[in-house]
C-alpha cells in the first residue's frame, strides 16, 4: 500500500499530485531525499536544534476506543521507522493496521514556527518527541444561559472541537506571533506549576490582541485555545472555550449590568474549579465591556457602564488565581479600552494586515485547495518563496506562475486576511465562471479582482 505524505515544499513539480506526494511505503523508512528526487538535500538543510521538543499531534478516530498509550507507542514506532522528515509533515495513511484503524492523521507540527519559517531536517531518533493523542468533539458550541435570563450569555465549546481543527495551520502571520503566544502560555503554566508566589512575581493570564478588522484575531484566539488543549492533553482532561457575548451582559435595568458580569464569572468559576480542565475565556470586542471610564466621567456614558468595567476588572483579578485559566481578548479600537484593563494584559499584540510574503502563502494555500478539488486543472505546483529565492527569481516555465503570484501578492499588500481568503472566490465569480480553469487564467482573474478591490475601497472612501 502507498503512504501519503503531505508536505509544503522542496519537491520537484512532476512528482506532486494535488499537493501531496504519493510514494511507496518502503521508501518512507529510508532516505527522505528520494521522496523529492533530490539527492543529498539533507546536508543542505539547516539542522533541527536538538534542545527543542518536536510536537507530534495524533488525531484519533472518533469511534476508536483504543488507549492513548497504545496509540502513542505505535506512533513512536512509526516515526522511528521513518527516521527523518523535513519541516512540518502530516501523515494520513499508514502501513500499520492498528494505526490505520484508529488514527486519522499524525502531524509533526510547528517545527517551522520554532525555527523561524525555515524548513529543518528533523531526526526522530535524536530529537525529544512529544506525542499528543486527541479526539475531536463534534457537538459544536452550546449556549450557556445565566440564571433567570432568557438569552445565551456565552458560547461554550468543548475542545478540541471539530470546527476549529485546522485553523491554526491556516493562520499566517509574519512575525513570531504564534510562537510568542504558545511560549507565553507554556510559561504561564510552568509558573503556576512551580507554585511561584503571585505576590512576588505577578502575571495576569490576560492576552489582548488588537488590530484592524479581518486580520484573524478571533480565529487566532480560538486556534490557540485548541492548540493548548491538544498539547496539554496529558495534563488536562478537558479543554473548554467560553466565548462571552459582551452585549448580552448589559441589562435594560439600571445597575443590573454589573451583576450580570458577576453572574457570568461565577458561572465560569464553577467550570474553572475543576482542576482537570483548562478554561480559555474569549472576550471578543472587549472595548464594549471595558470602555474607558474616563469618557464616562465626561458625562457621555451612563454610570452603569463604569460598573461593568469595575465588575469585569475585579472578576478578572479573582479568576486569575486559578492555575488553569487563560483570558483572551480582542479589540478593534484600542483607544476606547480602559487603561486598567490594558495594564492587566500581559501580552498586547498588534495584528496588522499581512505582508506580501504572508499573502503569497495565503494565495498558495487557496490555489492548492482549488487544485485539489479540481477547479483549477491541470494542477501545477506553486513554489514556495525560499525556493524562488534559491533560484534567484529567474523566470523559467516552472517558476512563471509562482512569480506571477508573487507579483499579485505584492500588489495586494494592504488587504486584510479575511478579504484575501475570499478573493479566489470572487475572482471565479466575477471573471471566470467555468468549472475548469487553467492556472494562468485564474491568476489573471485574481489580479483583476485585486485591482477591483482597491478601486472599491477608493470609491468607498470618496463617499465619506
Amino acid at each position, binding site marked *: 500500500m502507498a503512504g501519503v505524505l503531505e508536505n509544503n515544499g522542496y519537491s520537484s513539480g512532476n512528482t506532486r499530485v494535488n499537493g501531496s506526494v504519493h510514494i511507496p511505503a518502503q521508501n518512507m523508512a529510508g532516505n527522505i531525499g528520494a521522496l523529492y528526487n533530490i539527492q543529498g538535500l539533507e546536508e543542505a538543510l539547516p539542522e533541527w536544534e536538538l534542545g527543542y521538543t518536536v510536537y507530534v499531534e495524533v488525531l484519533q478516530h472518533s469511534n476508536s*476506543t483504543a488507549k492513548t498509550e497504545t496509540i502513542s507507542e505505535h506512533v513512536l514506532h512509526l516515526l522511528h521507522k521513518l527516521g527523518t522528515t523535513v519541516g512540518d509533515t502530516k501523515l494520513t495513511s499508514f502501513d500499520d493496521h492498528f494505526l490505520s484503524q484508529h488514527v486519522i492523521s499524525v502531524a509533526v507540527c510547528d517545527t517551522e514556527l520554532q525555527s523561524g519559517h525555515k524548513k529543518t531536517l528533523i531526526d526522530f531518533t535524536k530529537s525529544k518527541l512529544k506525542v499528543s493523542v486527541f479526539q475531536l468533539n463534534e457537538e459544536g458550541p*452550546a449556549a450557556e444561559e445565566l440564571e433567570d435570563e432568557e438569552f445565551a450569555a456565552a458560547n461554550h465549546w468543548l475542545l478540541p472541537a471539530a470546527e476549529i481543527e485546522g485553523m491554526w495551520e491556516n493562520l499566517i502571520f509574519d512575525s513570531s506571533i504564534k510562537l510568542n503566544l504558545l511560549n507565553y502560555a507554556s510559561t504561564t503554566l510552568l509558573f503556576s506549576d512551580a507554585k511561584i508566589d503571585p505576590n512576588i512575581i505577578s502575571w495576569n493570564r490576560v492576552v489582548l490582541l488588537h488590530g484592524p478588522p479581518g486580520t484573524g484575531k478571533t480565529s487566532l484566539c480560538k486556534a490557540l485555545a485548541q492548540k493548548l488543549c491538544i498539547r496539554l492533553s496529558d495534563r488536562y482532561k478537558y479543554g*473548554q472555550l467560553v466565548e462571552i457575548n459582551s452585549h448580552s451582559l448589559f441589562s435594560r435595568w439600571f445597575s443590573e449590568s454589573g451583576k450580570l458580569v458577576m453572574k457570568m464569572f461565577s458561572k465560569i468559576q464553577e467550570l474553572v474549579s475543576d482542576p482537570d480542565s483548562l478554561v480559555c475565556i474569549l472576550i471578543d470586542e472587549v472595548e464594549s465591556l471595558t470602555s474607558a471610564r474616563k469618557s464616562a466621567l465626561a458625562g457621555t456614558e451612563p454610570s452603569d457602564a463604569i460598573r461593568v468595567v469595575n465588575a469585569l476588572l475585579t472578576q478578572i483579578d479573582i479568576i486569575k488565581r486559578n492555575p488553569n485559566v487563560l483570558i483572551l481578548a480582542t479589540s478593534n479600537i484600542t483607544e476606547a479600552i480602559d487603561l486598567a484593563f490594558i495594564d492587566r494584559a500581559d501580552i498586547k499584540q498588534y495584528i496588522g494586515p499581512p505582508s506580501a510574503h504572508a499573502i503569497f502563502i495565503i494565495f498558495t494555500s487557496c490555489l492548492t485547495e482549488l487544485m485539489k478539488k479540481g477547479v483549477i486543472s491541470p494542477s501545477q505546483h506553486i513554489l514556495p518563496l525560499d525556493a524562488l529565492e534559491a533560484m534567484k527569481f529567474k523566470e523559467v516555465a516552472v517558476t512563471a506562475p509562482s512569480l506571477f503570484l508573487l507579483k499579485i501578492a505584492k500588489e495586494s499588500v494592504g488587504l486584510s486576511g479575511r478579504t484575501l481568503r475570499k478573493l479566489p472566490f470572487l475572482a471565479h465569480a466575477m471573471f471566470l465562471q467555468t468549472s475548469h480553469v487553467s492556472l494562468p487564467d485564474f491568476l489573471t482573474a485574481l489580479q483583476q479582482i485585486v485591482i477591483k478591490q482597491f478601486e472599491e475601497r477608493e470609491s468607498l472612501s470618496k463617499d465619506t
Partner: protein
Amino acid sequence: MATKGDTGSTCNISLNGFVTQTIKSRIVTEILKYLLYHREQIPLPFDQLYFQYERPEVQSNDNKHTLFKKRMTQLLKESQDLFVNIDSLFQDTDVSHIIVLLGSTVISPKEVYHIRFLNNEQTAQTLSVKHCVRSVARSLITSSPLGDSPLPPLTNMVITAHAPRSCNPTWFKPKANFKVPKMGRHCNIDISCGMMHSRVSSEEHIWMQTPSGIKGLKDTVSPKAASDLWCS
C-alpha cells in the same frame, strides 16, 4: 452556586425477578421519555406527541405552524434514533450505569440522573416487559425524586453509558476522558433486579456518549396543549 455539591435524591426501585437486556433497554427508554416530559423539555408526554405528529395520516394536512411541526418531527425522529441505539448497545454489551445529563454541555449540566442496575440475586423468575415498565413508572411517579426542584430551562439532553472498552460502538462516541460532573443537581435511580452475570465482568469500562443531544422544545403554537390530554 446553590446547586453545587448537592448530594441529590435517590429513588430505589426493586423488581422481584430476572430481567433481560431488552427489558433493561425498555426501562431506560421509558425513564428518558418520563424525564423529557417531567422536566418540561417537551410539551406533552412523549407517546402522546408521537401519536400526534408521527402518524402518517396526520402528516399531510394543515400547513399552519410548519416550523414547529418540523422541529417536533425532528425531535421525535432523533429520540427514536436514540432509543434504537440504546437498545442495540444493551444487546451488544453489558451496561450497568447510564447517566442522563440535562444542560448545555456534558461538563456543565443542570441536572444529572444516574440510572443504575443493581444485582439483587433474585430467583430466576423472568419478568414481563409490561410489568417492569409499569413498576418503574409507578415508583418514579410516587417517589418523585425531583418533585419540588425548579425546572431547568429548555436545554439539551445527552446520555452517556458505561460500557466495556472492547464493545466497538458505532453510534455512540467513546469519551475516554469523561468524568461524572460534580455540577448540577444529582438524582439516582437505582433499579435492583435479577441479572444474568456479566458477560465480561473484569474488563475496563469507559463512557460512551450520544453523538448529539436532544434539544428541548416548547409548544409555542397551541395555547391549550396541556388540556388536550384530557379532551382526546
